[in-house]
């Protein structure tokens, strides 16, 4: 047997097997709020099927609307316009673990949520009291209401945050403006200037992953604008040589920033290099009627779009720009799916999370002082070289020990801790969580 033949017969298959095994595989979970069904559906993006719904032992969902997933995919935040609550969901258990506390102006109709790509804070638009709240994702509490010394908010709607977390853009269909918010001061610092077709009813906005460009859709003028985030000025309108925009509604941008999708009577594909529509999503299933909200998986391989008519949730292959499936639902049928967001976890982690995790608050009594320390202990995981400890979704520490003590706490606050195992190649397991106290 020659070397070439031996290589082809034995070495290549082994390499192919190892490559396949080592290839990072991801299992994305999509969450869809159903405003009329009063549930939040959990969708397995591998099978494109509803696998259940978010359990909620707190105030029941009434009209869940907005949803956003933290950058580490560990938590989702859901606004409920009916119960006037913002819920925190552990994506490991698909259960509500907390509600956002709010000592400021009470929520009235909490609506759209955007979480900073840094994972530190979120912005929540309340369309009832026309306020924009800043939420500390660590404490799950509102910290400020965005101040605005410019044209007052009328009907704030879409909101997006730059990758560095310093600036937020928010559309207002009532004042016909796109506001620029400084996230350090939680204050409006200006509005986006526009020397092109004037804004009429701005509805949605996205920021690219590099943060240099934003796209805004205006339903009223049926225009999609490209905005330079350095100058906060419109630099172009998206050209469309296909079926003209009629009532573009919602935007999504791929993680690589190469493509923007916009829903209208169809789903348009925009090349961000040329700022031109390059096509529409092909659909051999039930035709689109009123596609509305959409979301793209964190890996940028698929998009999910909600069609209010039907209602349906379509899965779209980003490579081919074609619908590949309609999400099946053998549970409670969709009534009015409203928004969708996607979390991702490694589907085949080569390391498992610790089998058990326990947590307690220790009171360390010293003369004249009582120190409150949240202490976690967990069992070892085979193959793990370190463990990541998260508090309310934010990474606290990486440690090789089987114990962690959190001294930087507010003793009156409840925290949810999660621990993951990390193996030698850096792969991280799923999380195991505990709430203290």
């Amino acid at each position, binding site marked *: 047997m020659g070397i070439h033949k031996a290589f082809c017969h034995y070495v290549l298959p082994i390499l192919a097997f190892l490559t396949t095994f080592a290839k990072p595989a991801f299992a994305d979970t999509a969450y869809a709020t159903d405003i009329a069904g009063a549930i939040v559906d959990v969708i397995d993006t591998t099978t494109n099927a509803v696998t259940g719904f978010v359990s909620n032992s707190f105030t029941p969902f009434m009209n869940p609307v907005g949803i956003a997933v933290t950058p580490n995919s560990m938590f989702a935040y859901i606004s409920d316009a009916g119960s006037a609550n913002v819920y925190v969901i552990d994506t490991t258990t698909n259960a509500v673990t907390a509600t956002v506390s709010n000592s400021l102006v009470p929520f009235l109709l909490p609506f759209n949520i955007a979480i900073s790509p840094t994972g530190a804070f979120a912005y929540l638009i309340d369309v009832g009291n026309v306020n924009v709240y800043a939420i500390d994702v660590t404490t799950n509490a509102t910290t400020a209401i965005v101040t605005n010394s410019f044209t007052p908010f009328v009907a704030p709607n879409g909101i997006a945050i730059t990758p560095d977390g310093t600036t937020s853009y928010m559309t207002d269909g009532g004042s016909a403006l796109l506001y620029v918010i400084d996230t350090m001061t939680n204050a409006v610092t200006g509005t986006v200037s526009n020397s092109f077709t004037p804004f009429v009813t701005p509805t949605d906005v996205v920021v690219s992953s590099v943060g240099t460009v934003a796209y805004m859709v205006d339903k009223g003028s049926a225009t999609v604008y490209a905005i330079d985030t350095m100058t906060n000025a419109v630099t172009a309108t998206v050209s469309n040589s296909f079926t003209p925009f009629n009532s573009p509604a919602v935007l999504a941008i791929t993680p690589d920033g190469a493509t923007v999708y916009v829903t209208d009577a169809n789903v348009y594909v925009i090349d961000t290099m040329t700022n031109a529509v390059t096509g529409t999503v092909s659909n051999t299933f039930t035709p689109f009627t009123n596609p509305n909200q959409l979301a793209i998986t964190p890996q940028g391989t698929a998009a999910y779009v909600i069609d209010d008519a039907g209602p349906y949730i379509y899965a779209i292959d980003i490579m081919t720009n074609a619908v590949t499936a309609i999400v099946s639902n053998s549970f409670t049928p969709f009534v009015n799916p409203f928004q969708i967001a996607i979390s991702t976890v490694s589907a085949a982690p080569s390391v498992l999370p610790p089998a058990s995790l326990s947590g307690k608050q220790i009171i360390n009594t010293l003369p*004249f002082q009582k*120190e409150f320390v949240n202490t976690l202990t967990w069992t070892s995981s085979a193959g793990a070289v370190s463990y990541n400890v998260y508090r309310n979704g934010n990474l606290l520490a990486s440690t090789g020990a089987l114990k962690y*003590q959190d001294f930087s706490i507010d*003793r009156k606050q409840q925290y949810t801790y999660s621990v993951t195992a990390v193996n030698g190649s850096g792969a991280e397991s799923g999380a195991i969580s505990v709430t203290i106290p």
Partner: protein
Amino acid sequence: MNKKVLWIVCSVATVNMPALHAVCKKPSPPSNQYSSPDGVILEFRPSYFCPTSKVFRQIFHGGVNYQITGTFPVYHGENEWLHGLDIWGAVDYFSKKGHSTGLHTKTSITIVPLTLGIKYFFPSVGGDIPVNFYAAGGMKYFFVHTRNHSSHVKKTINVNGMGGVVEAGFITLFKEHLVFDVFASYSFKTLSGPSSHNPAVESTQLNISGFNVGLGIGYEF
């Protein structure tokens, strides 16, 4: 500071012993039916301090307390019952290392109280070796210093405040001037710690009250 005070008191006591004796010695009572210490008494009194606070005990347990105490006669008249009345002053020193409850981090405490009160010596009983029982009470001003070996809490805390003390015991004199003392006392004070700005730390009170049982040896001038 404690060592300084001890040094000064001891120096004064040894260097000026004859002078003190001359100055402080009471005039003898008109008759010998009455007898109580009639001069200034300086004593060194080690004792065992048993705190009443459970928290204090858990962290530090008990320990040895050192005291320098002095009694000064105030009445030189004819009334035999007032003859046993003395002004009482003392300085204590208690220092102990311990471990916090919970995380068992190292901590230490030093307590230096200053006492000012009244001590009453009852007329002597006994024959060849007369014994005077006494009772005392007074104000006790506590200086407390704690040090913690944890990087997350306040490392040093200094607090002070006024408390009190009651005491009972007996003394006996050997060879005219040598004093032997047996006593038990109860001092009481609860001090508050400084407020904490760290949300993980709560400021608390510490009860430093407790019983002392000890012996003393001194000199009557």
